[in-house]
């Protein structure tokens, strides 16, 4: 069952339109929340008047900051550096607005249409202040002492803070000593990644309902991290965590931003308690593009010390990260991951990177699929291409010279990644490059594009190599239960953002239990069904929840065999579990079905045989390290010299995931990731006017790729380097589809232009291609 291209369990419900997404929960007497948002990027709030809104029939309440002044700022879920505390976001603007879209007031009405009418009647007076939108500019004063002290919530006064929220260095070896030797060549590179984000097709939404009879606050529409959000909501409402039930139902895509705790989530929960009515909030798309986390937006400066054969002796890097107006739940996660993953698959014996996380008057920033790696891979692979060009070496050759060797695995890089020490658990980086080069005939592709260029076309071939990370711990659990009819359920703390986790977990259970995966029901994402879950992020569930389910299935098998041995009066060694029954190995006709064993474990019987009642078992999996999948992206592009358009003709991905639990789903993850990566490489970017006005607030100006822009994606999944640190050998597949797209496309565009190093920023706009193509002269061989 593991490794089968099994059909998804999730699909029949979704295909019939019977899913339950956030907006699909209805309650009698529900109120609809609408947020009044700042129309300016920076200003002092002089007055917020809700009187006119409250005069509308059906408007029940309207709140400004004074109504929520007792709430603390939103906390950090990950990478909580203390120096970031003064930059946390209040639930409603606290005297100053810092981005267009910041919640200023909120209204509650009996219909969504009425709530919008009411929101338009809220009068917000703001004295506009100059906007600071360039993170590369020198830091400016950001929050005054009063705001800093309040936002930090440490109980001790803080001074005014400037717009550089944090600066931290990640390093090993001795970069300065290496450069001081004077040996080798210094190669420098600037790389800019535009501001874009996940943009799931379902906007955010939340429905909260305090059920008086049960004394429970029930929240539907959560995603990604329901358990963490439950605890945060319990803190805000003063309820015990056991009185707060958070359910994720169906989720229309995650990609990083969706499911984090935002100001709106706190407001919905609080309103359900205060107004004693069900409260529903459904974000619209314009709000989403203004208010949900943005991501990327980094400027890297790299300086490498390189030997004549291409070996990178030292890398010294800095980057600025455009954090937007506040530091939200992700804390310093993106900057931290950028730093630790920057060396990628290469040895680089001396390494130093300095991160600058800087505030600007834009939508706050958080993670987006492959956070820090999409950015860092673009910068690093641009550098490696430049090294190859400057030394006159092949692009593959330089990579091979620098790869961590398979003999050196597991390879410890003496730095931290997501709070864990960084150990590349397994990998054969050369082998994957060989397989891709041979399997897809890279020499043939090169010859073909060279011939087409000679005939006058602007076509090019390029690639990027990367290491991903997955399976962050610390722990995940699962329970497998068999009812007295023999039906099997897996109940766990995992979450689904649409990636197919139910199917994969069912396959893992089916492997041990010997029954078809589609006879297994998977229950997850509900805080009332399981006690613990860390969430669906950082490509962790196949590793963590998958291993927990494997352990639970093994424990269930042991219990079933034990009970059957007792009943059949044989030893456990004589029995095996197969096809949903425990049978004698020597006499398969004799045995007990799981249903029969479950009946033997009904409470009265179970006590007699000294077993805990019920045919069920828990499994847990703990991990202190992440696991590191790796891959190669390659692209063939054609440029239109007239329009500057970049057409992606072919896109190839090789990815080693250790063990593919369901290859179809792995390929699906990769293909979807590539499409998002192409968006970031060629089309998507949140642009701002000088006064901080966002220019991309609809799908007409924030351009997501359509079926026209995404070519067929050719995928090679390999299993050459199973992870030694989990029982399945699996590495996560969720992010590697996106990681190297910007790098590969830029490399191919350079090649098409025959100008190594021409592309230093993404998205690659038609204007830039047009200008470069106009300047391009001559023709060189593809390296």
């Amino acid at each position, binding site marked *: 069952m593991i490794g089968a291209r099994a059909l998804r369990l999730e699909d029949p419900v979704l*295909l019939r*339109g019977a899913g339950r997404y956030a*907006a699909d929960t209805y309650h009698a007497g529900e109120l609809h929340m609408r947020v009044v948002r700042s129309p300016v990027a920076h200003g002092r709030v002089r007055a917020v008047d809700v009187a006119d809104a409250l005069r509308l029939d059906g408007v029940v309440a309207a709140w400004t900051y004074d109504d929520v002044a007792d709430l603390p700022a939103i906390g950090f879920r990950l990478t909580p550096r203390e120096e970031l505390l003064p930059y946390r976001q209040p639930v409603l603007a606290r005297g100053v607005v810092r981005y267009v879209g910041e919640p200023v007031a909120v209204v509650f009405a009996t219909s969504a249409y009425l709530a919008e009418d009411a929101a338009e009647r809220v009068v917000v007076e703001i004295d506009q202040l100059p906007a600071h939108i360039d993170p590369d500019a020198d830091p400016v004063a950001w929050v005054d002492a009063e705001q800093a002290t309040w936002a930090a919530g440490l109980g001790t006064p803080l001074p005014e803070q400037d717009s550089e929220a944090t600066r931290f260095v990640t390093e090993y070896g001795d970069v300065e000593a290496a450069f001081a030797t004077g040996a080798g060549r210094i190669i420098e590179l600037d790389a800019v990644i535009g501001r874009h984000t996940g943009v799931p*097709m379902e906007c955010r939404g939340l429905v909260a309902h305090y059920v008086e009879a049960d004394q429970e606050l029930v929240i539907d529409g959560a995603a990604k991290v329901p358990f963490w959000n439950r605890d945060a909501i319990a803190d805000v409402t003063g309820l015990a965590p056991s009185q707060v039930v958070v359910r994720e139902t169906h989720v229309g895509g995650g990609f990083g931003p969706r499911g984090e705790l935002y100001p709106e989530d706190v407001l919905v929960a609080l309103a359900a308690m205060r107004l004693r009515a069900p409260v529903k909030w459904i974000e619209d798309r314009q709000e989403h593009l203004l208010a949900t986390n943005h991501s990327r937006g980094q400027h890297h400066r790299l300086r490498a010390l390189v030997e004549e054969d291409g070996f990178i002796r030292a890398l010294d890097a800095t980057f600025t990260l455009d954090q937007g107006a506040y530091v939200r739940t992700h804390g310093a996660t993106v900057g931290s991951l950028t730093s630790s993953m920057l060396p990628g698959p290469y040895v680089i014996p001396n390494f130093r990177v300095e991160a600058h996380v800087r505030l600007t008057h834009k939508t706050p920033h958080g993670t987006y699929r492959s956070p820090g790696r999409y950015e860092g891979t673009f910068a690093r692979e641009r550098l490696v291409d430049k090294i190859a060009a400057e030394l006159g070496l092949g692009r593959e050759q330089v990579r091979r010279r620098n790869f961590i060797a398979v003999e050196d695995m597991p390879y410890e890089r003496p730095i931290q990644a997501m709070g864990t020490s960084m150990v590349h658990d397994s990998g054969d980086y050369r082998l994957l490059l060989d397989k891709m080069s041979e399997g897809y005939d890279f020499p043939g592709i090169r010859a073909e594009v060279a011939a087409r260029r000679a005939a006058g076309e602007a076509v090019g071939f390029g690639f990027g190599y990367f290491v991903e990370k997955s399976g962050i711990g610390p722990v995940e659990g699962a329970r497998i239960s068999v009812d007295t009819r023999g039906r099997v359920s897996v109940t766990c703390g995992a979450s689904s953002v649409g990636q197919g986790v139910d199917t994969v977990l069912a396959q893992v259970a089916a492997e041990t239990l010997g029954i078809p995966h589609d006879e297994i029901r998977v229950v997850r994402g509900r805080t009332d069904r399981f006690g613990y879950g860390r969430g669906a992020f950082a490509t962790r569930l196949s590793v963590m929840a998958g291993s927990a389910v494997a352990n639970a299935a093994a424990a269930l098998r042991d219990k079933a065999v034990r009970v059957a041995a007792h009943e059949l009066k044989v030893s456990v060694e004589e029995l095996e579990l197969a096809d949903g029954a425990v049978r004698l190995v020597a006499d398969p006709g004799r045995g007990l079905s799981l249903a029969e064993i479950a009946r033997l474990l009904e409470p009265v019987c179970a006590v007699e045989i000294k077993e805990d009642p019920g045919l069920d078992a828990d499994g847990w999996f703990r991990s202190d390290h992440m696991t590191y999948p790796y891959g190669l992206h390659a692209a063939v592009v054609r440029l239109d010299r007239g329009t500057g358009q970049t057409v992606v003709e072919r896109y190839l991905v090789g990815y080693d995931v250790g063990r593919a639990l369901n290859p179809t789903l792995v390929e699906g993850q990769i*293909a*979807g990731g590539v499409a998002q990566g192409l968006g970031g490489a060629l089309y998507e970017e949140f642009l701002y006017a000088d006064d901080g006005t966002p220019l991309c607030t609809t*799908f007409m100006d924030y351009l*997501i790729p*359509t079926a026209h822009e995404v070519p067929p994606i050719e995928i090679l999944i390999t299993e050459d380097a199973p992870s030694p640190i989990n029982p399945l050998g699996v590495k996560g597949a969720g992010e590697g589809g996106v990681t190297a797209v910007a790098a590969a496309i830029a490399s191919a565009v350079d090649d098409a232009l025959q100008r190594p190093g021409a592309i230093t920023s993404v998205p690659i706009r038609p204007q830039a291609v047009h200008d470069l193509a106009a300047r391009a002269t001559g023709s060189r061989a593809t390296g």
Partner: protein
Amino acid sequence: MSQTVPVRLYVNGDRHDIDIEPRRTLADALRDDCGLTGTHLGCEHGVCGACTILVDGKPVRACLMFAVQAEGTSIRTVEGLAPDDQQLHPVQRAFWEKHGLQCGFCTPGFLMLVAGQLEEKPETDEEEMRDVLSSNLCRCTGYQNILKASMAAAEEMSG
């Protein structure tokens, strides 16, 4: 502005008599007043196509039409696609078999778009199908499996 008007909608062969404000979109009326939540709203400005339904057999963005404009028409939503609880429509089955969906949020819109296209023109070729599919947005799949599923359904429906 909260004055309502009676509207009669025929959806998937069922009659719905509802009282709504004239400004109410067809998508909201289907979801909130008819209880048909399979039609999803992804942008409410007519770009993403998640709310695509069939009005008199033609694919339409339900967010760009007022419910009052749909009076007298025959509406089909995703809930009306499968013939019964046991069987799926060929397009639904193909999406399942070809892994044409992940989160499933855009799926009803794509299903109605493709069903509308193939019911009108079962012999749609791949190039035209790609054109048709480019009217809707999906953020999970990268579209290739949607295209494969649509062509598999085309083969079945024209065969």
